[in-house]
């Protein structure tokens, strides 16, 4: 099984944002990165995809992705940014076609997956936040990269769109490695195979949903929390 192995540090000038963040993940997994605001979650994704240049190494099956040119790296890894509504009025199809290795067939498959194929001639500027997020996912998917990183794919979305997106990510993990930064702990616990809790630029905890303890959340988020189990799913409740 193909494996991603990450060990990075990153600073903005003097300010350390990531300190020896080290983890590995296998193709077929859905890994969530959780943690409070400012923990370095988005920075970690940006380092992994090559937007930022960290110190350390990011290897996928012993190929150091940091040594590759953007076009070659895109074969292995891609990134879905935090959703914001697009300013540029591309059609959905044009938007999804933009990847370096995307073919017409890939576009159709990806758009069918997110249920936007019939609306491919509509403008992305007319999509709602949730639909735009789906278009972003389709764009990453159409490129065929083996690892897909997503930065808060469900932020600002209603529960229906959030669940739809998490279901799609769960289906995709069979053929990909999905790494998502998540703010919604309950969605993260329900859908992830594994979670990494980041705090102040370090990994505070790593494990599966049923291993997460309230004390860890309290330590990192400074909020009293309960974790209850309902029908086999862990649920985090803030204890106010």
């Amino acid at each position, binding site marked *: 099984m193909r494996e991603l192995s990450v060990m990075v540090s990153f600073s903005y000038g003097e300010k350390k944002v990531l300190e020896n963040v080290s983890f590995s993940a296998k193709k077929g997994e859905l890994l969530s990165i959780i943690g409070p605001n400012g923990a370095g979650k988005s920075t970690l994704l940006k380092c992994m995809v090559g937007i930022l240049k960290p110190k350390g190494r990011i290897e996928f099956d012993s190929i150091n992705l940091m040594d590759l040119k953007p076009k070659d790296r895109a074969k292995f890894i*891609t*990134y879905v940014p935090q959703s914001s509504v697009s*300013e*540029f009025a*591309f059609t959905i199809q*044009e938007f999804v076609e933009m*990847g*370096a290795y995307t073919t017409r067939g890939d576009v159709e498959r990806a758009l069918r997956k997110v249920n936007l194929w019939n609306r491919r001639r509509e403008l992305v*500027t007319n999509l709602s936040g949730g639909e735009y997020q789906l278009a972003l996912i389709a764009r990453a998917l159409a490129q065929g990269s083996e690892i897909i990183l997503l930065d808060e794919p469900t932020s600002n979305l209603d529960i229906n769109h959030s669940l739809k997106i998490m279901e799609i990510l769960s289906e995709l993990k069979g053929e990909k490695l999905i790494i998502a930064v998540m703010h919604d702990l309950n969605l993260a616990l329900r859908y992830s195979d594994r979670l990494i809790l980041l705090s102040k630029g370090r990994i505070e905890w790593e494990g599966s949903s049923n291993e997460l303890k309230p004390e860890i959340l309290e330590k990192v988020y400074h909020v009293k929390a309960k974790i209850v189990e309902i029908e086999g799913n862990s649920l985090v409740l803030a204890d106010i």
Partner: protein
Amino acid sequence: MKRILALCIISAFLIISAVSIGSVSVPLIKVLQSIIYGIKMNLGFGAKSPGTGDTYFTIIWDIRFPRVLLAYLVGFSLASAGTASQALFKNPLADPYILGISGGASVGAALAAIYFPKYMGMFALIFALASVYVVYTISKVDGHIPVDTLLLAGIAFGFFSSAITSYLVYVGREKIHNAIFWLMGTFNGALWTDVKLVFLSSFTGFLFLILRWKELNLLLFGEESIALGLDVSFYRKAIIFVISLLTAFAVSTSGIIGFVGLISPHAMRIIFGPNHKRLLPASALFGGSLMVMADLFARILIKPQEIPVGIVTAVFGAPFFIYLLTKRKRGEIYA
């Protein structure tokens, strides 16, 4: 594709019409005969008489045709550079002069007007390119070019060079008259050598951009497009170079003509959308046509005198731009 073809036909029609209109009106058929004869003569198989009378031929081939062609090519260059600037800055309100080119060219032209009046174009070109280099160097951070810094550096440099130009205009007094006319933009006295020069720069610049239409689309999404395989840093540098080439040569032959580089891509985006595969050629063809029309107005509005073409483009361009902005504000059009 049909609409691009229509723009090509409009361009050709406007060029021929603009050549026929002027203080001496020349029938369209004679314009065509003269142009065909001129082309044959230059290619080396045209000893026969043009059949239009020598006066017509001289007016058309030596004066009006190079002028109209230069106007078209300058409009074509500025609109192409404007389209690329808007992709580079991810902003539909950016224009090709934002990199400091116009400021630098003005200083060069004003200096030349005082000390080396014959070399105004050359000075403008050298100063324009040097200015881009300065703005580029100021903006560079760890080998990367953050576009926000580039934009601010360009604006700051613009103010600085404008102060120097004002000072030169103040101390140069009479000597600077030519430079002032030039600063406002003119195609008066266009030469075939200018046409050839701008043809070369516009052709190479446009060819690079159209072959890279996918990359221009991706640049609109900024740093994130690295995830789609774009070498953002490399393409930013390459596009800055091409914008400089297109704009500096246009400015060095005909002065600083505003609004065409800003409006052409903006207007064409409403019709063709943001995809550079169609937007770039449409914008370039529209820019060329717009400039030919503006130059025609500049020639005939207060005959026999001429208005600098930069004034015409600004007078018509500014209200049109405000109209676009209000539409945009109301959400009736998107970028």
